[in-house]
């Protein structure tokens, strides 16, 4: 038997062999893996620089095995811009949550996208501030209860949740923007293709890309991991439709 | 000469800054220490423009000069504003084409130069700044006429027809100053 064994599944080289600090049922680990697999498959890990955000994934550099910078809250696209402009031969990605990217970092992401920076942005949308303890985010759904919207998000007072993928897709500058989810195996398989494609566009020096990933936060949502998956399916998916919103390949627009 | 300060003032667009820079360039050619200080900010967008040039044989201290040795005014507001600031014993060059008054002060030399008329007569009213530049060189003697002429050729030499006109009015301004106040009374 031993002589005939084939490895059909293993840890990507771009992922460290370590235990993460993420909560049970959180999908950050899955998204990290998809990023790591993409870097491995494209053979770019050794010329990649990641930019970690402020938020739960602040320690992403402890899990993803490549050079890293740690940004100030929301500024990852600015760091990525500075780096990529100086070293266009390297692969640069940011990994940001919704508080980081859609709130304090809104200016930086819009302008990085509009300049068409040849970077890849992994935008993890779980509709809440995770690390600071479950406060309302720009992506928090209407009536969703958070620690700073204890009676549910009141949209007449705080506005409606921001759809980042749609918003950035309005820019004239070419780019690749798609929203995916990672709450079921099928979705994960598709998300992997999309994330890999986003990196591939960068390897080909084609365009800015942003992949919005719908993600769970059982801890701060107050659900079990199983309930969180159902909550995402029932509540987030209707408001944040999955799909490609912008692509440099015209034929791929749905 | 230890130090000589000249201020040029007028409307934006009258070539004030350029004339000042030409003085500074010529100063470098004569191995002088130079500093050119512009007015800047909202007023440079269409309003009053002025600059000061400091020329010195030794290290220049303060680039800010309260009472320059020479002030060249190109328009009436500058005449009113800067006339009182000329250093006693100094030189006040007035563009009499656009300023129809003269200073009551008797403690300096006042030189009236119809700069716009002279420039227009030569073919282009825009060269009034060079007329004044010529007059300044003639009246002050602080820089050699030849040096300034060379500077003009270097800096404004791209378009031959303008250069010839500029050189002509430079000479006319210079001669006017010499004829008016004479070689020995230079300030």
């Amino acid at each position, binding site marked *: 038997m031993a002589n005939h064994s084939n490895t059909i599944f293993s840890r990507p080289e771009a992922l460290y062999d370590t235990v993460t600090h993420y909560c049970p049922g959180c999908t950050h680990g899955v998204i990290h893996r998809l990023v790591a697999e993409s870097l491995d498959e494209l053979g770019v890990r050794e010329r*990649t620089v990641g930019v970690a955000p402020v938020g739960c994934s602040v320690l992403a550099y402890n899990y993803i095995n490549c050079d890293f910078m740690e*940004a100030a809250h929301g500024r990852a696209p600015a760091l990525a811009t500075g*780096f990529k402009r100086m070293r266009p031969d390297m692969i640069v990605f940011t990994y940001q949550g919704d508080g980081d990217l859609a709130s304090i970092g809104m200016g930086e992401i819009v302008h990085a996208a509009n300049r068409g920076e040849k970077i890849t942005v992994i935008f993890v949308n779980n509709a809440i501030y995770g690390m600071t303890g479950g406060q309302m985010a720009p992506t928090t759904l209407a009536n969703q209860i958070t620690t700073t919207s204890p009676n549910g998000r009141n949209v007449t007072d705080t506005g409606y949740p921001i759809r980042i993928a749609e918003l950035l897709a309005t820019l004239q500058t070419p780019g690749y923007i798609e929203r995916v989810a990672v709450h079921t195996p099928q979705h994960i398989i598709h998300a992997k293709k999309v994330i890999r494609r986003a990196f591939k566009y960068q390897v080909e020096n084609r365009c800015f890309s942003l992949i919005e990933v719908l993600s769970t936060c059982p801890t701060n949502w107050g659900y079990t991991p199983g309930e969180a998956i159902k909550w995402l399916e029932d509540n987030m998916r209707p408001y944040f439709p999955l799909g490609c919103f912008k692509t440099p390949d015209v034929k791929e627009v749905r | 000469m230890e130090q000589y300060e000249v201020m040029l003032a007028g409307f934006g667009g009258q070539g004030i800054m350029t004339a000042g820079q030409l003085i500074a360039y010529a100063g470098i050619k004569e191995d002088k220490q130079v500093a050119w200080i512009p007015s800047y900010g909202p007023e440079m967008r269409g309003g009053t423009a002025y600059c000061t040039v400091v020329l010195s044989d030794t290290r220049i201290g303060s680039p800010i000069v309260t009472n320059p040795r020479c002030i060249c005014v190109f328009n009436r507001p500058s005449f009113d504003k800067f006339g009182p600031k000329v250093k006693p014993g100094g030189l006040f060059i007035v563009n009499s084409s656009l300023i129809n008054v003269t200073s009551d002060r008797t403690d300096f030399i006042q030189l009236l130069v119809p700069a716009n008329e002279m420039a227009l007569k030569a073919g282009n009213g825009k060269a009034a700044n060079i007329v004044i530049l010529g007059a300044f060189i003639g009246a002050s003697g602080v820089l050699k006429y030849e040096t300034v002429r060379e500077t003009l050729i270097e800096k404004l030499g791209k378009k031959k027809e303008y250069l010839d006109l500029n050189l002509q009015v430079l000479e006319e301004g210079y001669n006017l100053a010499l004829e008016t106040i004479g070689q020995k009374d230079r300030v």
Partner: protein
Amino acid sequence: MAKILMKGNEAIAEAAVKAGAQGYFCYPITPQSEVAEYMSRRMPELGRVFLQGESEVAVGNMLFGAASTGLRVFTTSSSPGISLMQEAISYMAGAQLPAVIVNIMRGGPGLGGILPAQSDYFQAVKGGGHGDYRLLVLAPSTVQEAVDLMMLSFHLADKYRNPVMMIGDGMIGQMMEAVEFPDEYKEDPLPPKDWDLTGAKGRSPRVVKSLFLDPVKLEDNSWLLHEKYERMKREEVRYELYKVSAKNKILIIAYGTMARICQTAIDELEQEGISVGLFRPISLFPFPEKEIKKEASKKNIQTVLTVEMSTAQMMEDVERAVLGAKPMAFFGHTGGIVPTP
């Protein structure tokens, strides 16, 4: 190279080019926009990076990202813009990134005005952003010195792996003076870089960060930074004396444009028979404390007069240096009013 007439802002830009700056990031603000205009032509012509960002907040962070490559990068701004960059400057100091930041100061606080002032002294020399850190701060008083110190700034940034700030007032930026550039920028050897992000090929990954969640490690980092600042105090104090002699009754302390104005005043007073000397700090951090103390302590000095285009900011450092040894006085204007001799 022959002497050429250049505006301070343009001379600063060209000095950066000569010192090997590979990237420049900017946002327009008076009175330093000429640097950006100059670089927008110059850098592409050299195949180097020029980028106008969407805000000073972004520009500061672009500088962080760019500095992480290990290449020489810089930005220029003026007071309100520098305030917005403090976030990135603090992060760069924490992450030990070399970068050069030029502040062509205007009057504040708030939107203030656009005329020359020296009112960002505290912000520059006391850190400026959050956390235990310092910038190495240099203050030129002529356009030529701005060129020389600009080039030196890149060297010192690399030497100490620390942001270096050059502060000039609007006068330094806007004034034209004759300048001379060296044909080639010669500098002392620098330590090899073992921190720049070049891709984890044949080595373990590197992380450029200012985050240390373990308090012991954070304290270690802060003391490591502190040691660097102490070394700067030993090795990088720069100053100039003007007409300092045993005849002086008064010792003036002034920097930048203000020091030049004082020189002229000193010359005028000399003719009236009053002997005054000038101590001009060139490095504001490290501040020439011992040297000022030494000069101020001399028997002939009766008063130490600090002169600034701000409301007695540097004077606090002068007081700390003189330590009550002599009576102190202050003279200054701010808000864009430049004192005259």
